[in-house]
């Protein structure tokens, strides 16, 4: 019997697990993916938004600003890469400037710290260059960048260290209200619990509608991104986008932006298209074309164009898609259900959900604790033990590391400098990696410019060794995604070529 069951291990579920673990509760997280962070929290713009554009008075605005303020402490406790590089929304004509002033007004209502309307000269104090047509813009200094999956993994790991149970590859199929709480059904195992927290992303409506008569609808709204090589990293500092007027995606997005990821690659995106399949994160030719043609056309406005005059198509190393769980109410749906006691929603968490989730989770848990008189857990540990990966060590630390453990001397991913020791650590960590993609998310092996061409077979071999399975059983992302097959008696042996 659990006290609390969290459905979904994205940023919402992970933040809730972390917050709930601060109380004396027996908690489980149930996730249908083969790893945590299997949904939208993996494929987004990785931006910690300042909160300047979320409409005043909405949950989005309130929790965006509260969430943003939490990131310094949260990321330093959990050892997650995060920096505040500021956000600039630039304008090229008077209508844009009008929009900039509107955003400034909105930002003030939302109490976003430090937001300024700048003229061209003001912008040039922040970035050395802007294209000649740029006349001014909005500057929000609290905007930042985070590694979204590192954050989700770290929150989950820390929840796990604080005795939260995790069940992966487990899709919640039914929830029944019982006298003492809920009965939750997955194909492998059933659970009884007092409370249910619905953090199922694009599927949160299905989960809610299983128990509540207050039906909700979530529409998956796709956004796509392109990643550029980290060679360009010296030229991209501030997160920059154009005023959202007349942009592809229009009002659904913050507009096409260029941002420096914490890993030094450059992220470009994104548009917005409603889709029907709630798990279809595939990139589309229309979506990718939208990004490339936008940047081809507008590259000249950006600071990077001083050094790299044209959009560098040949620097594209990858692309990815993500689905915003858009609620028809156009706002986050959060808190205890009105008609079902003990059932809490954290649903419709679309952008700026990554930023807002830590604050929403705090608020939901606080309310539940007050209402149900839940006791604090005095043994909660908030600081994450973290072994620095080889990639982040300085020369002396590296020397020392190889001396203590020879496996640090075996470089597996040459693009991102990931060693065998780093990979083994990721496999044996709490909630350790059991697939090639899980290793990739935890260590960056395969995320660099060769995209795993060289290292992914080696990663698979290490997984096989460490998990004691055959190479043919190793998967890329869980059941059915096997990579290798046994060689049958081949024609080549018969013909002995």
């Amino acid at each position: 019997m659990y006290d609390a069951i969290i459905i979904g291990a994205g940023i919402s579920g992970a933040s809730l697990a972390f917050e709930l673990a601060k109380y004396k509760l027996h908690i489980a997280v149930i996730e249908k993916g083969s790893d945590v962070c299997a949904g939208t929290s993996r494929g987004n713009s990785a931006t910690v938004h300042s909160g300047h554009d979320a409409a005043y008075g909405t949950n989005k605005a309130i929790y965006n600003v509260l969430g943003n303020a939490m990131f310094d402490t949260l990321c330093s406790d959990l050892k997650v890469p995060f920096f505040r590089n500021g956000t600039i929304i630039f304008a090229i004509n008077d209508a844009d400037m009008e929009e900039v002033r509107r955003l400034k007004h909105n930002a003030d209502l939302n109490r976003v710290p430090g937001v300024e309307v700048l003229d061209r000269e003001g912008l040039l104090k922040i970035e050395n260059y802007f294209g000649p047509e740029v006349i001014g813009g909005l500057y929000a200094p609290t905007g930042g960048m985070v590694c979204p999956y590192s954050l989700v993994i770290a929150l989950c790991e820390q929840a796990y260290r604080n005795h939260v149970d995790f069940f992966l590859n487990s899709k919640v199929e039914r929830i029944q209200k019982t006298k003492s709480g809920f009965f939750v059904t997955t194909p492998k195992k059933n659970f009884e619990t007092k409370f249910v927290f619905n953090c199922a992303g694009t599927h949160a409506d299905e989960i809610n509608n299983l128990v509540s008569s207050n039906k909700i609808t979530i529409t998956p709204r796709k956004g796509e991104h392109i990643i550029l090589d980290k060679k360009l990293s010296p030229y991209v500092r501030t997160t920059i986008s154009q005023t959202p007027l007349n942009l592809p995606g229009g009002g659904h997005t913050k507009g096409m932006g260029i941002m420096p990821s914490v890993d030094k690659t450059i992220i470009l995106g994104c548009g917005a298209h409603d889709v029907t399949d709630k798990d279809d994160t595939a990139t589309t030719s229309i979506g990718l074309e939208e990004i490339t043609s936008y940047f081809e056309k507008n590259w000249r406005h950006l600071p990077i164009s001083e050094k790299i005059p044209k959009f560098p198509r040949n620097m594209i190393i990858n692309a990815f898609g993500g689905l915003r769980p858009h609620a028809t109410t156009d706002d986050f749906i959060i808190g205890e259900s009105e008609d079902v006691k003990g059932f809490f929603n954290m649903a419709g968490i679309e952008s700026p959900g990554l930023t807002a989730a830590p604050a929403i989770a705090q608020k939901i848990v606080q309310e539940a604790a007050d209402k149900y008189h839940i006791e604090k857990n005095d043994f909660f540990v908030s600081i994450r033990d973290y072994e620095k990966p080889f990639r982040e060590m300085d020369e002396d630390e590296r020397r020392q590391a190889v001396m203590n453990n020879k496996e640090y001397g075996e470089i597996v991913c040459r693009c991102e400098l990931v060693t065998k020791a780093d990979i083994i650590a990721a496999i044996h960590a709490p909630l350790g990696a059991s697939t090639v993609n899980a290793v990739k998310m935890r260590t960056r092996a395969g995320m660099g410019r060769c995209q795993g061409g060289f290292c992914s077979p080696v990663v698979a071999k290490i997984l096989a060794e460490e998990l004691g399975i055959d190479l043919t059983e190793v998967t890329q992302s869980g059941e059915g995604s096997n990579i290798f097959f046994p060689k049958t008696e081949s024609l080549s042996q018969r013909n002995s070529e």
Partner: protein
Amino acid sequence: MKAYDLIVIGGGPAGMAAAIAAKENGCENILILERGPMLGGILNQCIHNGFGLHTFHEELTGPEYAARYAEKIYNQRIDYWLNTTVIHMDREKRVTVVNANEGLQILQAKAIILAMGCRERPRGALNIPGSRPAGIFSAGTAQRIINIDGYMVGHSVVILGSGDIGLIMARRMILDGAKVRVVAELLPYSSGLKRNIVQCLDDFTIPLKFRYTAIKIHGDKRLTGVTLARMDEMNKPIPGTEEFYECDTLLLSVGLVPENELSNDAGITLDPRTCGPVVNDSFETDAEGIFVCGNALHVHDLVDYVSQEAETAGKNAARFIQGMAIREKGKKVTLCGSDGVRYTVPQFLNSNRMDEKLTIRFRVGDVYHNAFVSVYFNDQRVLHRKKPILTPGEMEMIELRKDQVNRFTDLESITVKIEKE
């Protein structure tokens, strides 16, 4: 800090041939650094025939070709470290290496030869839309898994790219019991050798579709299929030409890129066309005493040329160490390609230092029939030679003689062009 006269980074055919040549030219204190578990580089996984026709006048497999050089390395007692990755290099010729036994250390060299080979362009670089299931491999990765690790990568295959690696992998997959549905090539011609098209595709009746590429990847966990479409002149899919191919494996053979992260570390200037360093006639980069050869310099289709080029680099590195390199004297002449010639290697020569004969290698950007390769000294044509066929897939060569270069007064630039007549 351990010190060496010459450090060679990469123990493939280029690194080995360079080290041997350096030794034969009087350089004693040499160290080869190789990341892999044995010498030989990419050749270790190329178990098919067809290597060494030019060098040894017989058809060897990749490992056999590599073994001939490795033997010389052993016999000449040239030092090499395996399982050792170079993670950094600077212009002062300090090299940071890591391996399991000796840990991390910094080595000092008088000269360095870069021979890191190349890497394959991944799917991301093509920006093919769709999902990201298991079952998508670059062809070289699949080659290594099959030939070295001894596993299959799938049963039903679509191959993108008809370069030699793609062609050879088509045959390999068939011989190992898989079905190859189709080979799709974006260009209107194959960049592979004619004999490979015959022996690897035609003999097995594998269709080869020109002007086609993948426009969508299907499948959630493992690949379930690929949609191909024909491209127009702007390389946009032509509506109505889409064809769905059911398959569990997609092999990408869509180009190789010289591996030059270390060159970047040292601030060496790269040529945007070759993606390798800009070099002079002795294969020296713009960092004095740092030389480069093989696929790290520009992508080769034939290993024989790699070995030849590497010998030149090795010899010149030895000369540099012995202080025999002629530096300032002589005239710097620019070499470049235009009118259909994509690039030349080297990009500079020194009229005084250059060998009696210098081979200029270049690639064309398109297929030409019965066209002329012309060489201009400044704007005067000095060579005009008819070629029945020129294709981007095959590296071309011309030779320049030192006396010819030095006879020409006020020579500033040498340009290689393709001319219709």
